[in-house]
């Protein structure tokens, strides 16, 4: 069934479908491609028995997260006060009353639920199969338990091949085959395919890459059930990705890069995206200038244009200024780009000061953004069209073992505003461990969903180097929501905790022991 047919079918079925339970992705969206690539990796890595060396690192993590869902409820229209679209229920809650309904609706917090997501990450590097030949794999196995587990993002996608490729790397040439990532101003994209990187001159790199594209910020195809479970008009074609990058940095003074990338359906009937990006930097004495431009060749939008100057002043001051123009980018399998988003222009200023011995550091920053003309505002009902953010952070290393830090930030903008404060103390226990305590307090006022009150939190964290290549980290926090003036969504009385073990096995090809 094509996406068009699905859309029309939706249009015919106008009455809303009520939510019938947690959103799940259904059976894991297995595509043969990651399995094939994984097999290639396994074959390559099985040769690690003959490899000169193998290094495996892993992180085992278990989290505990409490959440309070929101549920829709209703009261009879006759029980409400006032009149009009928004009224008050007997308990003071603002309810919405559509003219034709006998009931008025509102949201309130449901009983506390919890999730315990568990994850095992493994990274494997093997080298020495031959001159310049190596293999790399990065996999993740995950699951979740608890009352909120069924709906935890990606909890039912139990296996994730984050990366897996074989590499041939010689002076001036690098070839990779498998699942890999490309980094550019366009973003961080994963794909299953191949890449060739050449360095014909000192400081000059040229790379071409291509293969089956994966959804951005996911290592699954666009056709994954993780997307289709929450988007009925999900793409049915994974798409190809092709691109090229050229970057040139002859020395430490100036350089830049250009990238072109195109994502197209495998039947070549339509694009998902086609963009170019350029970035450059210039060092003038101690001042660094850098800029970036991203241009969407389909819509004609400049998704991002920014220019930043970073100026150290003396040995203790640093000032940074940035101007930026931003318009959001949407892939063409969605209709969002056709809704003409406008984005904003932004100016940002950051200053930092540190003592000569760098034991004390103070930073301050602020920015202001102005949204473009939307041509959709109703003059007597217009929303704010600008926003600003200010904040300060400070840290003080009292002794090599003790550090205190804190900060305050305020954000006022379209949609939501927030004021928050953090303070922390950390104690290094010898050079193998640390203990810390963090206190937080914040208030979020949502413009589109009014909610006041404050959330106070206290977290404790600790790290311990158990052995040379084994480290344990843990943290736990409790949060309390005060000043609830209305039974709003999301009562933030919650607890969180996590435990992580990070370890390394294998030989050391010049790489360090576990960083501490």
């Amino acid at each position, binding site marked *: 069934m094509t996406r068009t047919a699905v859309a029309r079918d939706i249009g015919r079925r106008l009455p809303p479908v009520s939510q019938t339970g947690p959103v799940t992705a259904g059976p894991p969206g297995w595509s043969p491609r990651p399995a094939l690539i994984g097999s290639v990796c396994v074959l390559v890595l099985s040769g690690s028995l003959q490899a000169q060396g193998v290094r495996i690192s892993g992180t085992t993590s278990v989290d505990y997260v409490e959440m309070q869902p929101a549920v829709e409820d209703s009261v009879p229209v006759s029980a409400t006060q006032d009149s009009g679209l928004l009224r008050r229920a007997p308990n003071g809650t603002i309810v919405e009353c559509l003219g034709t309904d006998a009931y008025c609706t509102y949201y309130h917090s449901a009983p506390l639920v919890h999730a315990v997501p568990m994850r095992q990450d493994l990274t494997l590097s093997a080298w020495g199969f031959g001159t310049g030949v190596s293999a790399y794999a990065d996999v993740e196995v995950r699951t979740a338990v608890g009352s909120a587990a069924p*709906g935890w993002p990606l909890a039912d996608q139990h296996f994730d091949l984050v990366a897996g490729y074989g590499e041939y790397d010689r002076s001036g040439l690098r070839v990779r085959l498998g699942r890999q990532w490309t980094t550019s101003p366009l973003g961080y994209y994963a794909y299953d395919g191949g890449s060739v990187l050449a360095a014909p001159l000192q400081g000059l790199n040229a790379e071409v890459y291509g293969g089956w594209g994966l959804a951005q910020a*996911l290592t699954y195809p666009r056709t994954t059930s993780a997307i289709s479970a929450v988007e009925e008009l999900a793409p049915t074609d994974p798409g190809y990705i092709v691109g090229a990058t050229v970057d040139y940095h002859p020395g430490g003074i100036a350089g830049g890069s250009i990238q072109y990338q195109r994502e197209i359906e495998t039947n070549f009937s339509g694009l998902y995206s086609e963009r170019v990006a350029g970035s450059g930097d210039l060092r003038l004495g101690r001042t660094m200038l850098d800029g970036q431009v991203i241009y969407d060749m389909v819509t004609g939008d400049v998704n991002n244009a920014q220019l930043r100057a970073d100026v150290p002043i003396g040995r203790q001051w640093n000032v940074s200024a*940035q101007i930026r123009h931003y318009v959001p980018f949407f892939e063409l399998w969605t209709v969002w780009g056709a*809704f003409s988003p406008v984005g904003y222009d932004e100016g940002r200023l950051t200053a930092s000061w540190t003592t000569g011995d*760098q034991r004390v550091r103070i930073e301050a920053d602020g920015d202001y953004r102005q949204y473009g003309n939307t041509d959709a505002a109703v003059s007597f009902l217009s929303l704010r069209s600008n926003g600003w953010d200010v904040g300060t952070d400070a840290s003080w290393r009292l002794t090599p073992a003790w550090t205190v830090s804190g900060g305050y930030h305020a954000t006022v903008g379209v949609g*939501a505003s927030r004021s928050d404060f953090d303070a922390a103390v950390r104690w290094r226990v010898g050079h193998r461990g640390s203990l*810390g305590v963090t206190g*937080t307090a914040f208030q979020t006022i949502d413009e589109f969903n009014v909610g006041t009150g404050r959330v106070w939190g206290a977290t404790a964290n600790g790290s311990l180097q158990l052995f040379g290549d084994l480290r344990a980290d843990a943290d736990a926090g409790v949060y309390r929501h005060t000043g609830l003036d209305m039974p709003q969504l999301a009562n933030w009385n919650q607890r969180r905790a996590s435990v992580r073990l990070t370890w390394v096995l294998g030989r050391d090809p010049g790489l360090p022991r576990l960083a501490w």
Partner: protein
Amino acid sequence: MVTARAAALLLALTATSLAPRSGDVSERFPHRRHATMFPTCESCHSGIASGDSARMFPPPAICASCHDGTIAKTVQWAGPAVRPTNLEFSHTGHVTAVRRTGDALTCSRCHALADSGAVWMAVRGAQPAACLDCHDHRASEHLGDDNPCRTCHVPLVAARTLPVAAIARFHRPPSHELANFLSAHAPRTTADEMRCATCHARESCERCHVNAEALASVRALGPDPRVASIEASHRPLYPIPADHQPASWASDHGQAAKQNTQSCANCHAQSSCTACHTGPGAAQTISALPRPARGKAQGVIVRNVSAAGSHRNRAGGGPDAPPASPSRAPSGGGAAQLEPASIVTQDTGRLLDRHGTAGLSRDSGQRLAVDSGQVHIVRVHWPGFITSHSTAASSRQMTCSNCHAQRFCTECHNGEGRHDFHPVNFIARHAAEAYNRQLNCVQCHSPEAFCRTCHLNIGLSQRAAHNAAFHTAEPLWLLQHGQAARQSLETCTNCHQERDCLRCHSTIGQGVNPHGPNFNARKMQAANPQMCLECHLTNPLLNPGR
């Protein structure tokens, strides 16, 4: 009955006892007291000029001829013990050399007390200044620069009679007190090396130099256990060279390291580099540095510093602290906050075993506290780098792979949510930042699989709901949402799927036109015609309004 001889002696003794003391504290024999008895130095030191060691000092019998208990009190005189010295001096040679020049060589020329004029027997041990009177030195003082120490001194390792205490009391030449001495003390010539060897043994250099075994000038020095025992209690000192001090050194040192790796090896072992350079880059340069070995100088210790409690996704952010384990959850736990990336360098002692004692002094139980050394903070990335590194990474302004393994990047960019990127309790805090989009959430999080899934499951959005009960702050949301959507459409997509909007904004639905005034339908259709047909029943360019 007092004989004349005895009276004369008594008078002499009295006279000498009343005479001004020589003032030379090193005088072990009261020469001035005997000034009237011996007309020449050779009276007692007859073997000096001839080199007859048996006659260099008077035999006890000569002293006893007067000090017999009758003429004068008995004394114990057995001749001086061999003085520990690092001097190479021959009286015979000097006498011969001076006589050859035709000059008269008198003992007082070297042994007269300063300011004593021609007072007989006001003597002392020869001072270096006396040597300088004759020997052609470029410097004007004993410990001056370019002094050919070898003229008078044997290398320290050859001065086997010198005790440790005497070596420890060696005077420091003025050149060693200069501010830049640590950076500029390398010997350039053989003569320089010989000067060093006068006071130093190999262990003097091995205290600091990581590459001591590779330096010819260090190998030219001999080993000496006396020096080793002295150095064991000294902490190595590593100066911060002038070129290390600019803020850009953290990113500029790569080129310098490639061009002159052996210069780095004076102070840095491989471990200095691998504290940051965890990636494959720079491996060749790093491998040219020495590896730290037990009992040897470790060089400058470089540590990644992380401290809990400060924001990271703001101006002070920095990504280089060792990653806490990645978590897929949006930072829900009481996540540790990490300080901006700081690389702390410290002077340190010899390799510490797991108990913290120096390898060479384990028996003594001496502990060398690493943290008590000098600390110099080196910051690699500018403040706020964690949220502004896109250009640096993409333009290869910095070679990320030098210090970061790929895993480091995917921990964030795969939407796994490192515990140390967002502030604590970001689950509760993120609404404002999601709306404002200072950061592009899509770089790390899939709007559908991550954001929308969570919002749907927690009840903050609903499938196909068309009431605006969520947006209670805006009573006429139906009229206002157009402006909000155009300003922050990506936020809408975190809760709403496309069908929610198509109910109104499609020809299938209510037919409300969502396009802005600059919408280029032709261009969009050329790119992906299927997208148009999600809202339009037929080709809108052929059949407008349908």
